C-alpha cells in the first residue's frame, strides 16, 4: 500500500474539478492555497475524494494547511498516514 503514488491521481482530480482541464500551471510543488487553486470548499471536495477512493477517514486534526499546501504535501501526508495505519 505504501508504494502507491497518490500524486498523479490527486493532480488529475484537481485539474478535472478545479481547473476545467487546464493543467498547464499545475506542478507537484505549486502552492495550492497561495495560487488560489484550492479554498476551504476545495479542501472539502478533495477530502471527500480521498476518503472515498482510499477508504480512509481524515481526522479533524489532520485538516491543517501543512497537509494540503501542495500535491507533494498531500502525497507525503497520505503516505505517512497509510504507513502509520499499516504498521
Amino acid at each position, binding site marked *: 500500500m505504501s508504494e502507491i503514488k497518490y500524486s498523479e491521481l490527486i493532480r488529475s482530480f484537481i485539474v478535472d474539478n478545479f481547473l476545467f482541464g487546464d493543467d498547464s500551471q499545475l506542478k507537484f510543488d505549486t502552492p495550492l*492555497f497561495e495560487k*488560489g487553486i484550492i*479554498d*476551504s*470548499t476545495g*479542501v*472539502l*471536495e478533495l*477530502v*471527500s475524494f480521498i476518503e472515498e477512493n482510499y477508504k480512509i477517514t481524515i481526522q*479533524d*486534526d489532520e*485538516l*491543517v*494547511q*501543512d497537509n*494540503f499546501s501542495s500535491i507533494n504535501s498531500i502525497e507525503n501526508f497520505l503516505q505517512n498516514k497509510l504507513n502509520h495505519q499499516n504498521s
Partner: protein
Amino acid sequence: MPFQKDLILINPKAEAERIIKELREIVAKKLHKRGAVVGVSGGIDSSVVLALCANAFGPEKVLALMMPDRDSSPDSLNLAKKLVEKFKVPYIIEDITDAVKGFGAYQKRDEAVKKVFPEYDESYKMKIVLPKDDEAKGKLNVYYVTIISPNGEEKTARLPLAEYLQIVAASNFKQRSRTNFLYYHAEARNYAVIGTGNKNEHEQGFFVKYGDGGADIKPIAHLFKTQVYQLAEYLGVPDEIQKRTPTTDTYSAEQTQEEFFFRLPYSVLDRIWFGWEKGFSSKEIAEALDLSESQVNVVINDIKQKIKTTEYLRMEPISLG
C-alpha cells in the same frame, strides 16, 4: 515608529465628521436620493451606521428596518428599538419568516442537517462553526455543524461538502430576503440603501453576495471592528449594544461571530491585521501583543487566505469586452 497595540485607534470625532460629510455628498450629488434606509440588527455595526445617517441626513430622513425571522434572538429586536429611540429615527418591522419559508429555505437547510444528524428536527437548535486554532496549527477553514436538543444535549460533526453547501445556500435566503425589503422601502421613498459591513466583514468575505453585501454605500467598510467600537462610543450608541458579544443571529442556536467565522477575538485579530497591513514584521507584532511569532503568522495566513478566496464576493459581474 515601532508597532504598538494601540496604533490602530482612530480619532473618532474626526472620522465620524468625515463620514457624515461624505454620506451627505454622495447621497445628494452622486445617487440623487432623498434619504437613507438602514437595516438595524441590534448589533454594533448597524447601530453605528444608523447613528451616522441620523447625523448626516437628520433622523426624519432615515428609515430603520428591523427584519427578524423565527431564528432571531428577541434581544436583537429589543436592542434595535432602544437604538432608534435614542436617535429618534422612524422604524418599520418586517418579519422575514414567511418570505424565507416561501423559498423553502428552512426545509432545505434542515434536510441537510438531518443527513448529518438524523435525530434533528424543529425542536432542536443548530449552528455552523469553525474550529478554534488555539495551538496555531494552521487549521483549515472547514465548517462543523452543532445541534442542541430540547434538553440541552449538544452534538458537533464535521460537515461533508454537499451538506455544508446546502446549509449555507439555504441560509443565504435570509440575507437576500432582507436586501429585498431594504430596496423595497428605499425605492418607495427614493432613499439610498446604506450598508453596514465593517472592514473585517467586507475584506474577509463575511457577507452574502447580493444579500447583506448589497447596498448603495458602505460607509464603515474601511474600518476595523475595533474602530467601529470607538465610533459607537463617540456617537453615543446605547451601552447594552456596545457591550453585547457580536453574533451572527442567522442560526437558531446562539452563535458568536468569532466561532462562526473570525476564530479570534476581534481585539486581537484587528491588531495583527493592522500591523501586517502597515508592514510591521510578525516578530514586532507578536512582541507588542504578547503572542508567539508563529501564532501571528498563522493569523496573517488565515487573513490572506480569506481575502483571496472571497475575492469573487466583492467582484462586480464580469463583462467580456
